[in-house]
């Protein structure tokens, strides 16, 4: 089975959860011996792990025919693609894309981020998809998130191969209901054209069915998993007298940071032995600093700014409680990461990962009393901390990408009409 996947991010250069999920899923799927994955991303850096799949950089795919000698091509893109492949792909140019700005190789310079001209990049990605669809040999197309839906749809129309799309988030999650009509339009067209839709949780599945009017039979949930942390034991907790409760993520409306501040205020009225940490950055950070000051808890409430890489796991491991009060979270991988390093976790019921976790405390995002109660119980009752720590770790170590990969495989086979 050959799958052509369109993604936007791939580790190690990632900006959000999409890259992590793309990596985990493809790695899990590669355990199937006959699975060949070609993963397209806008701009590879050359240090991606290609041991189990093939990465194609959209910025190396010519969309306008240009004649260049082998050495020049090698000098330009040799780091991320073999020049022979460039020449081979060039044969897939069937349309005139001279209207798009291209470089001397006839390729598009993608930023690979989330620039202000994002809509333009999405549409340029379509041009690349057309070349790949004409030239490459594959059985199925798999598009990750709305940025890549148009590319997937175009590839489907050209190749007549089935398209499955993977909904990692919808605009309803990002905007608390205030959807951007352009984004909604792209999402809806992708879903309408797809042969099958995968969602990362039941929560997202319901949004896809209710808000995007999709046939429930066409939508299947494939819960995310988490990559095993090979050096989980290297993250240790420094013994300290005070307990640490941590919020980690973008400080934006979607993540519900204000509920965390209010819960902290409640806890601190009863016990002084706790410190609260808000790690990350975002447009609501200053408002949260104000709120903490207004509640008179600023001496016990700390902001770290943006953390990355190993710092994230270190922060999680140093915490006694990890809390994610998201208002709407399609899945939410970070509680699983916290559990991997043995940190008890409190998550909102409005998070997709709540559907597969038993050994995490679940509260409504708005229920600050319940949240405060859970924090208080974990920091004051060793049995509570120990149970959540041990059983949580065991639970999360059994959530494997390989199983998610098998589910995706069955969906491919269904889309191909094999059952």
């Amino acid at each position, binding site marked *: 089975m050959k799958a052509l996947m369109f993604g936007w991010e791939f580790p190690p250069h990632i900006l959000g959860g999409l890259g992590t999920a793309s990596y985990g899923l493809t790695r899990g799927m590669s355990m199937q011996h006959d699975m060949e994955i070609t993963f397209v991303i806008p701009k590879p850096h050359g240090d991606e792990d290609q041991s189990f799949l093939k990465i194609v950089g959209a910025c190396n795919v010519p969309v306008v025919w240009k004649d260049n000698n082998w050495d020049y091509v090698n000098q330009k893109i040799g780091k991320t693609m073999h020049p022979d492949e460039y020449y081979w792909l060039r044969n897939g140019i069937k349309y005139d894309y001279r209207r798009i700005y291209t470089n001397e190789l006839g390729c598009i310079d993608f930023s690979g981020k989330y620039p202000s001209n994002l809509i333009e990049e999405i549409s340029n990605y379509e041009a690349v998809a057309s070349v790949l669809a004409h030239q490459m040999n594959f059985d199925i197309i798999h598009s990750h998130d709305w940025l890549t839906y148009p590319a997937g749809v175009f590839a489907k129309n050209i190749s007549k191969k089935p398209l499955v799309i993977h909904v990692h988030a919808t605009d309803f999650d990002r905007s608390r209901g205030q959807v951007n009509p352009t984004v909604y339009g792209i999402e809806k067209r992708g879903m309408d054209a797809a042969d099958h839709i995968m969602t990362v949780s039941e929560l997202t599945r319901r949004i896809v069915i209710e808000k995007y009017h999709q046939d429930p039979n066409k939508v299947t949930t494939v819960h995310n998993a988490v990559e095993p942390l090979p050096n989980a034991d290297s993250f240790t907790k420094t013994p300290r007298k005070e307990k640490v409760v941590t919020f980690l993520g973008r400080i934006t409306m979607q993540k519900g940071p204000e509920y965390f501040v209010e819960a902290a205020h*409640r806890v601190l*009225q*009863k016990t002084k032995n706790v410190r609260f940490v808000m790690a990350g950055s975002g447009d609501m950070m200053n408002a949260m600093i104000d709120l903490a000051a207004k509640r008179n808890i600023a001496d016990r409430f700390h902001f770290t700014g943006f953390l990355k890489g190993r710092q994230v796991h270190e922060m999680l491991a140093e915490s006694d409680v990890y809390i994610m009060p998201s208002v709407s979270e399609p899945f939410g991988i970070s509680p699983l990461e916290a559990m991997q390093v043995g940190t008890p976790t409190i998550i909102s019921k409005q998070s997709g990962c709540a559907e597969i976790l*038993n*050994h995490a*405390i*679940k509260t409504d995002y708005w229920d600050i*009393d*319940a949240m*405060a*109660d*859970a924090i*208080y*119980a974990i920091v004051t*009752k*060793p*049995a*509570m901390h*120990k*149970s*959540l720590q041990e*059983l949580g770790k065991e639970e999360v170590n059994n959530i494997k990408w390989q199983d998610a990969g098998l589910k995706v495989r069955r969906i491919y086979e269904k889309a191909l009409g094999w059952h």
Partner: protein
Amino acid sequence: MKNICFYFQIHQPISLKRYRFFEIGQDHYYYDDFQTEHQIRKLVEQAYLPSNKVISEMIRSSNGKFKCAFSISGIALEQLEQYAPEVIDSFKELGKTGSVEFLTEPYAHSLSSIFNATEFELQVKKHAHLIETLFGKKPTAFRNSEMIYNDEIGEIVSNLGYKTILIDEARQVFGWKSPNYIYNHSYLPKVKLLVRNNRLSDDIAFRFSNRQWDAFPLTADKFISWINNLPDNENLINLWMGYEALGIYQRAETGIYDFFKALPFNAIEQKVSFVLPTEISKKMESAGAINAPYPISWYGNEKDVSSWTGNDLQQEALNKLYAVSERVHLCSDRPLQHDWLMLQSTDHFRYMSHKSSFGSPFESPYDAFTNYMNILADFLERVDAQYPTTIENEELNELLKTINHQEKEIESLESEIKRLKTRKSSTTDTHSK
């Protein structure tokens, strides 16, 4: 001749209310009365009252040949008295027929038999007293909460004067021994053990209306013939179940009451009789001793106590609770004593189980634990306010002795003063002379 011994269990936990940690020290009322009343009324209307009516009919129509025993926990009796006194009256009526026996059990349906022997004894006495007051007869047979039993518990119960104990047919103790005999305590031959027949009991309690079951539909005729076809010398069939099996697990529409009504008739026809626990344990010889070094119970597949004590949360809650037993025994504060009992119900701990929190009103074992521990924290503060934990138990005993004896002490000192005064006055008298 085959004998059927029916016994029905009634227990309903009191519902704890949502109690957040910031209420600790502020609010000393722990119960959700609305929920408790709602639950007990539902049980009463859908199960207890109609079932009592059927049983009384069965006794009447069989001329007292149908017999059965009941065990009603102290907590359940309190709730019935408060929310459904008509059920108590109905049980009193049943008691008067002479075909019904009331067993005794720890008052609070607690795990005290494992955690605190003194508390256990107190609760059994308290329950036996209540049963005698309500139904006019001292109970003579004992069943522990959740049928928890081991040799040690058997000994304590025997010392309390009970020679009949009801236990479960747990595989780890019985192996391939049949439950259809009477056995005795491992080293106290006079203490008789009656054993629940798990298969036949569950056939009625859980499988009766199951259409996938190969014996469906179960008729009284078929059921009695199964009993009659048991090996010749297996003569006692103990059918024990929660009373809510009639009317809740097996709803009236399933025909469970018709099945019961037909039982005495079919039994008499096939020469099977009904017996009560105390009666049969006096009549029948023991088939041998049963060794039970570790506690067994009638719950779950494991038939052990892991449903209540199996994980860290449960251990923590139980240890914290029973650590103050001695102090609570010293207290004379009535509300405190009452809360102490209410907080011991086994259900609170089962809701904290990761494997058997069936029917829990809480969202998760963690939620159950958090809520319970908040309540317990307030309770412990109240105990502490009476007798601070900074004082050792022995020291406390001494202090209490001093306090309790202070009146006598004062009296004796006063009389001494008087004596000295009179002596003084008499001496001054002589001087003035």
